[in-house]
């Protein structure tokens, strides 16, 4: 389980203002909200990439808020992360996907790494892409390579930051289905940050809405649709009239 309690974080201006949430085991949790609401910052804080000013983050019952990089390395064996901008290195697709395995798990042999990379690429419908350069791929293919890298460790927690941003509707739906299927098969706990609400809510178990650095709603998808909160109501329906 991922638990966040009263997180505050500022970069000159406050970005997170007292965010608290709990993501149950094997749950797909969708974090929605308008731009600059603090969604990606929340995700990076959970992963230990940003240190909050105050507040706590627990993963598997262990507080990880102020861990040093050495302890965080252990934590990161449990977390797969898909970055908004793909964050693929200037290496071959195979080396990109294998990177977390090689760095975090020194005891895995090269034969097994190659096997697992091939299996991931097959799962992403990109078989034989090992030697390709990421610069030669489309946006959708890069996202799928990112998903492959995030899931190759078979980590119990996967964090996806805007997995469908900039993709066409068909590719977006495929990515969302992939996230859902991967989560079910690997029995992982997933947090997805996205502005692509309709697609995201079609795969999510729970949903939280962020606004101005605060979590203003936390509940099931049905509760979100039934919410009387005018911000949630307007945002989920994509209406132009309202407080947003």
């Amino acid at each position, binding site marked *: 389980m991922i638990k966040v309690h009263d997180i505050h974080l500022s970069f000159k201006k406050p970005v997170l203002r007292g965010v608290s949430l709990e993501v149950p085991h094997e749950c797909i949790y969708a974090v929605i909200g308008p731009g600059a609401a603090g969604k990606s910052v929340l995700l990076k804080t959970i992963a230990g990439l940003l240190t909050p000013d105050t507040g706590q983050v627990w993963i598997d019952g262990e507080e990880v808020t102020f861990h040093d990089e050495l302890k965080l*390395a252990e934590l*990161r064996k449990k977390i797969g*992360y898909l970055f908004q901008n793909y*964050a693929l290195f200037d290496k071959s697709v195979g080396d990109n996907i294998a990177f977390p395995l090689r760095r*975090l798990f020194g005891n895995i042999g090269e034969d097994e790494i190659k096997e697992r990379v091939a299996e991931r690429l097959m799962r992403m419908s990109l078989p034989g892409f090992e030697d390709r350069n990421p610069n030669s791929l489309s946006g959708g293919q890069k996202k799928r390579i990112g998903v492959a890298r995030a899931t190759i460790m078979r980590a119990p927690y996967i964090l996806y930051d805007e997995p469908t941003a900039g993709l066409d509707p068909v590719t977006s739906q495929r990515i969302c289905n992939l996230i859902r299927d991967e989560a079910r098969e690997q029995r992982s706990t997933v947090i997805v940050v996205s502005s692509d609400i309709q697609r995201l809510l079609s795969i999510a178990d729970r949903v939280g809405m962020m606004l101005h650095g605060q979590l203003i709603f936390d509940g099931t998808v049905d509760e979100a649709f039934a919410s009387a909160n005018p911000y949630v109501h307007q945002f989920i329906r994509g209406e132009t009239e309202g407080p947003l």
Partner: protein
Amino acid sequence: MTTATAESQASEPDDLDDVEESQLEFYAREIKDLVGVFSRTLYYCVRGKREKGDIAAQMYAIGNGSMFFMCVTMAFIGAIVAYQMGLQTKKIIPDMSLLGATFLKLQVRDLIASVGAMPLATRVGAGIAAEIGSMVVTEQTDALRMSAADPVDFLVVPRFIASVIMGTVVLCVGGGVGIFSGMLVAMVSFDVNPNTFLNFSMLTSGDVILGLLKMVTYGGTIAIVSSQRGLRTFGGSEGVGIATTEAVVGSLFGIIVWQFILSAIGYVLLPA
């Protein structure tokens, strides 16, 4: 008074002490950050686990990319310095026999390293800051950290080692070209025979050691300052542009400060 004006005035500091304090804090933070990157770089030089070929790739990028530029620049600088020295010598004592000896001493002890490091800083420093800055804004450094790869180990150390080694090599080669061009200018403009010009009698081992020490220091300074600026990149392409500019300015400033410190040390320990 409008509300906006009132708010902006309200947010201004009460006196100049506040401004000076915040400036001091800014520079203190910058220096602390630089020292932090440098100490981590030294640590990972010994204990890091980089990928094979990273240092060689950076050495190729820095050496191959800078060699021609450096040779052309140093050729012009050597020619200008030799010509100016010849002109001044001609005015005072029209004896050119020691022109080469003094030229060589000046070049080896000081100018090859300190003047050559400036174009090197613009070429190499800007490249390092832009490359690392782009990786920061595209979250690649975060992806490295998620895989327990410290960006200092993975990105800074190969550039630091490559810049120290290839910076020295490029400056030595460029310095040789500068001496050659100075010799040509002395021959054409002042009728100084090349054998007379290449007079190493005034050159001491201390001059060579000091020159090499400066080259190594400047190579390292360029890499550390530029990497630190790159790692602190914030925002998008505009942030990368700012980081690149700051890297060049910071590297040049660092070179000048080191020039002063090393020259002072050199005059005490390795007197001319």
